[in-house]
Structure formats: C-alpha cells, structure tokens
C-alpha cells in the first residue's frame, strides 16, 4: 500500500493471455502451513482452478522477532527481499524418459505486500497452466531467504475434481466477438 493508501499490484506480463477469462474458477481452500520458523511463515491459502490450469495462492509472513530492535528488523526484512521474492517451480515433470525437459518456472501473476510494525505480509499468486489427470502436482518454492527449497504437493484428484467444476460463463448464449 502506498502512502496515499492505494494498493499497488504487480501483474505478470502473461496475465490475461494464458489464464482463461471467460470462465469462473473453482476455489479450493487449503489453509496449509508449509513452512514455519520464528522468522518466517509460509502457507498455502487456496487454489483457484480453471479448466486448463490452476492459480496457486501463497501467503508469506516475515516476522519481527520478540526482542528484536525495530531497525534491525527492518534491515533483515530488506535483506530478505534482496535475497529473492520467490520463484515457484513445478518439479513434477522431471522424467526424462517421458521427454519432459525438467522443472518449469511458474508465472507469478500477482504479488501484493502489506506491513505492520511487527510483520510483513505478502500475498502471492502463481499460474500453473496444466490440465490434471492422475499425476500429483509437486511444487518447489525457491529463490527466497528461507535458506532452503520449500517443497510441497497437491493431489491430482483434488486438482482434477476442481477443474471439473469450473463454470464457463459464455454458456448463456451471448458469445464473444471474433476479434
């Protein structure tokens, strides 16, 4: 949020071109803490399923330690951002025999930050452009100040079921122009 109280939003360049706009996504709440330390908390808030992809929504908290001087906390916070704001990789498709080339970096389509005196909150959204059938989605959060890769996975059944419930809004007969 700016000093004028306006939210600043940074969107990936591909937003709007790869995420289907003419459909209503199906939300599946997750609320899973996937990393916890005195300094950090990373949680998987929800997934937003589209017909041929999902948006993975993460929350990340950088906390001021209980006895930490405020200026020291601010320096640590800035250092953590300098170390990386996070890249989410799909590491599921790593079987070379299948012709898969390796981990895929997912587009970060939304990043928003807010801050109080004692913590910084980041809301992150990543676009994963696959249709899911039987293979679980294995993800890895890297390029952060966590000091380690953060691996977690989403079951294929959950993703497949969510994608099956996506509502297509052009089904009411209005259609869209050709261009």
């Amino acid at each position, binding site marked *: *949020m*700016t*000093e004028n109280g306006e*939210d*600043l939003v*940074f969107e*990936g360049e591909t937003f*709007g071109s790869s995420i289907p*706009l*003419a459909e*209503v996504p199906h*939300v599946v*709440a997750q*609320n899973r*803490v996937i990393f916890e330390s005195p300094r950090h*908390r990373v949680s998987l808030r*929800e997934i937003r399923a589209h017909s*041929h992809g999902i948006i993975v929504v993460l929350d990340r*908290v950088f*906390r001021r330690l209980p*006895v*930490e*001087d*405020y*200026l020291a906390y601010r320096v640590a916070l800035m250092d953590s951002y300098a170390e*990386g*704001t*996070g*890249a989410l990789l799909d590491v599921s*498709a790593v079987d070379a025999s*299948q*012709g*898969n*080339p*390796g*981990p*895929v*970096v997912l587009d970060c389509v939304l*990043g*928003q*930050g*807010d*801050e*109080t*005196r004692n*913590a910084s*909150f*980041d809301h992150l959204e990543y676009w994963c*452009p*696959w*249709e899911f*059938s039987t*293979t679980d989605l294995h993800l890895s959060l890297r390029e952060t100040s966590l000091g380690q890769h953060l691996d977690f996975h989403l079951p294929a059944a959950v993703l497949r079921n969510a994608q099956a*419930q996506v509502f297509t*809004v052009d089904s*009411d007969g*209005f*259609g*869209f*122009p050709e261009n």
Partner: protein
Amino acid sequence: MAQHEEPSRAPDDDVLGTVSFGFVASSNTDHGMNLNDLGFVFDDGQPETGVGKRAFEQSITAMNQALVGYAQVLAEREEKPSELLTSADTDPAVLASSDQVHEALLGLKTGHLAYTGHPFLEGPLTRKARQDEDPGTYVETDGEPAALQRAGSVSTGPMARELGVSVALNHLLYSGDGRTVRLEVATVHSNGVMLGIECAQLRGERETADFWARRSGGTTAVEIEAHDPLSGPDYTFEPLDLGAARFTQVARHRGELWMPGVLAAQELSCTLYVSYLPNIHGDETTLELGFDLDTAALREATTHIQRFDEES
C-alpha cells in the same frame, strides 16, 4: 493445452529468479490491533471457561515477565528514569521492552475476555506518539484510527496480527444479460469475515468497441445488508468499490467486503446490492441478490486462524 505430464514450456535455468515481481512496503499507522473487537466466539453466546481460564492465567504470567523485563531495562538507565517515560525517548531498548508490556497487556485483555466474556479495559492502549515523529517510522497502534474511534465507527478491518482462514464458497449468485455475480471465498478472522466478491461483464457478440468500453468502464459498487433471523440483530457494512480488470471480452470487478462481528450470528441472511454493473443493453439496474452464510462453518474455521505472534 498440454497435459500436466507434458509441459509445453522448455526449461531454462536462466529464467530462475527473473520472474517479474515487486513488493510494496508501507508505513500505514492505521493498521494495528483493534482492542474494540478483541473477542472470542462462543457457542450459544457463553464463554468456554476452561479455555478462557487457561488463556487468562497464561497472560498473567506473560505480563509479569514483561514487566520484570521492562523494569530491568529501566534499571539500566536509572539515572533519569522519569525522562525515559517521556514522549521524547526513543531508546530502542526501552521501546522494545515497552512493546513487550503492550503485547502482554493485549494478551491479558484477550484472556480476560475469554474467561469472563467481558472486557476489563476500554479504549486504545497506545503509547503516546511524538508530535514530530519521523514519517518513516511506525507507531504501535492497538486499535482503529483515532478519527474513527472518535466517530464511534465500527471495525474497518481484520486483526493485523493474524492470517485469516480461507473458506471456499463458489456461490454463483447471478448469471444472465451479460453479467455474473459470485461469492468466491470467505476469509475468516477472529473479529469478522472478509467476503470475496467478483462481478463480471461479458461482451456481446454484436457489441461495438465503443459501447463495450462505456459499459465496462465504470466503477462497480457493492453493499451488503444482513440480519440474523434467529437472534434478531441487523448488520450493515461499509459499501465497497470493486477494482476492475478490463479485457477485450470480459471485465472482472473484484473486491473484498469486510463484515465485522458477523461470527456471532446464529444464522446470517444477506442481501447483496450491486450497482453500476451495466447489462448487455447498457442498463444500470441495481441487482438485489439474496444469500445465506453458514456462520457455523465460519466459526469452526476460526479455530485454525494463524496468529504470527504465537508459537506454532
């Protein structure tokens, strides 16, 4: 579209770490604990004394430790202790230990409320801010902005120190004449619910670019009225202007409307009013949509709220 097992995107190590992204840090002094809204939600309106008693006892211990720590810091500066407590003092050690006392006091108030069902303190517990404060620094605020407190306004947002719990709604309230309205997700906080609303406009196949630009170019506003049909209270909330993402064929208007205090309702019947969302003909008739929120499910979600100042 490629299947998950067959990604169409080639790997490129050079891409690592180059994802375009930015963060925004703010110095918003309006964010802070809202003591006016501190509370627990109890079944049938009655406090759960076992949980409350434990919370109260733990808060007393924490308060004692915080005061002892504060006294030690003051003792180290005992040459002029009275001056340390004036508004001009900015010694980091004093402020840090003072912060601990503030934290403990908040815990004490919360514990008391959980134990007895009643607050023992009213009003903000805020260190007096310096008049000439550097705008680049932060002031610990325990409640709502002072102007709002004076005006008697209700809570303007969730507790600053907790991550809410997402409850998927996926409730399509309206679809027709080139418009859709749906409830996407409810984010549950201990002092209320943030309701995610998305309104969409769909471009008609014979809609010209100019007409579409005019139809989708406005600011859509939503407002909710709610009442509890069992226990009676009516709830009104601040109206919300939705943010818009406009594309060639679809315009999406999204926002989160803050609903403080609704977790106390046994049932919640709501009416959503959607304004300035022109239909396929360009008419701006306000939509009036009814829906119910399952407050029992939302209350259950409060047990999973993450507070960043708690040990996990």
